[in-house]
């Protein structure tokens, strides 16, 4: 299972890349693998505000629809429109081309509560 070292992770299997005061959010390799072929991605609107753990979108696979929870609070400044037409990117490149949302971080302290790559690897070992 691919778990990049430079990202932080949530228990709901989202990843976060911190870039200054911007958080880039997507779902992990484990999440896309469990969901199976992704057929539709529903993203929020630019300007939406979310608190940490709010559902900010959803991904639909051939098996089920699952919500995407934002691991940190903030305002949506950009969404990845390419996923509307090419949802399969989530399966192919979950940590790269399939980023979902960019948030302007509201509370930087929340980042500390997220798991490191090592902690997430251990979390997966214990929970799957």
């Amino acid at each position, binding site marked *: 299972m691919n778990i990049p070292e430079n990202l932080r992770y949530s228990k709901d299997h989202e990843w976060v890349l911190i870039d200054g005061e911007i958080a880039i959010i997507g779902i992990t390799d484990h999440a896309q693998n*469990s969901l*199976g*072929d992704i*057929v*539709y991605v529903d993203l929020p609107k630019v300007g939406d505000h979310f608190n940490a753990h709010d559902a900010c979108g959803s991904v*639909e696979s*051939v*098996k*089920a629809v699952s919500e995407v929870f934002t691991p940190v609070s903030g305002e949506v400044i950009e969404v990845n429109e390419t996923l509307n037409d090419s*949802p*399969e990117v989530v399966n192919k490149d979950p940590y790269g081309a399939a980023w979902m949302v960019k948030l302007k971080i509201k509370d930087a302290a929340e980042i500390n509560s997220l798991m490191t790559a090592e902690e997430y690897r251990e979390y997966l070992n214990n929970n*799957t």
Partner: protein
Amino acid sequence: MSIKKVRQHPTQNESLIFERSQKGRIGYSLPKLDVESKNLDEIIPVDLRRDDDLEGFPEVSEVDVVRHFTRMSTWNYSIDLGMYPLGSCTMKYNSRLNEKVARIAGFINLHPLVPEEEAQGALELMYELQQNLAEITGLPAVTLQPAAGAHGELTGVLLIRAFLEKRDGKARRTMLVPDSAHGTNPASAQMAGFTVKTVKSTSQGLTDIEHLKALCKEGDIAGLMLTNPNTAGIFEKNIKEICKIVHDAGGLVYMDGANMNALVGVARPGDMGVDVIHLNLHKTFSTPHGGGGPGAGPCCCSAELEPFLPVPRIVKEVDRFKLDFNYPDSIGRIKAFYGNFGVMIRALAYIYTHGADGLREATEAAVLNARYISYHLEDTFEKPFKSDCMHEVLFTHKKQARKGVHTIDIAKRLIDYGFHPMTIYFPLIVEGAMLIEPTESVGRQDLDAFIEAMKAIAKEAEENPQLVIDAPHSTRIGRLDEATAARKPILRWKPEIEAASKTA
């Protein structure tokens, strides 16, 4: 001389009716005109007529149509062909006797608007069915109006909403739903104006009591929607405590009756503290189901909730039956006329042919059959929750996934062995779920054949996983590309699509 396998013949590979079209072919002939002919413009003005030439409309003869649809009908799998172990669906046999009774001329020719005096038999049948469902659930008041399960859920939570607004003089807005629930539960609650909060399951697959208590402490609790046995096939043994916690928080308990086939004649939700339940007549009471519907989702409730039931209600006055609209607190009508009457006839026939002892026996056989499968397959497939199952048993693909064989592959391979697959990827609380519900309608031979097929597939997964991953092999069409079908759906036939496929 060699005889080759025929693949192009229509019995082996059916084309669409559009593709069978032949220019100018028709399926009718009109008699000779024996009246004065009229100009079409005098009958239908030009501006009301369609003037395109209906390109692509199939031009076929009667025999083309009959053969096309008859051939496709033989491709169906149905409950009349074999075991249909779809978990949570209770695909039990639909008795021919029920069909015969439902076709009695006095019932099928009855117009829904005839005066009450002329529909006494139909009203008596509905009244009798209500009485029986009340006895079976232990909840005294019944409406037969809801057209199916989710409609019954909506009716149930609307009753709760109306009751709470009358009792408290204001609304309560939080509906609790366990994470193992059918997806229709949160949808019904949302539709009735509630906000849904999710109750977690424990590692034993039961409702987490501590989490339920914590959510109840947050206040504004309208109720809990609980399926029992739950969707993991496990009886919520703490049901009385669960009901008490919700009642103490001022809410009511709605039970989803989807899994009543595990309880009928043995235990009653009303005795457990449940306030309202819906029943699926098309599951538990053997009326046709899944394409052969329609369904029916009657609601049974406590005396407290009775004033809010939909109108008209069927009441008995001495020996006459009446439709009574005079319930000022009623949530109103929720279905045109009185519900799906044909389904009610079949359900009552099912109850009467079984009797109380027979209903209990059916329940016991349904649970025994599921436990028989559980016992024989628990060393072969991972069983995520160790408790004894009720009428359905839950496994996962965990052991087979190590070889790259997943639930979807096992389900597809089962088709090659002649079985309809089980419910897959539900409930969502376990990964790679396979939910198997044999019902009481299968005997030991069928159960053994199913168990043998599942063991054979597990062996194949171990020794030749690609065989399972590529399944099915015995069907006319192989594994369908569900992902492309969902990502780039082609929703209807168009002439240009056929033209493109011919030149390709």
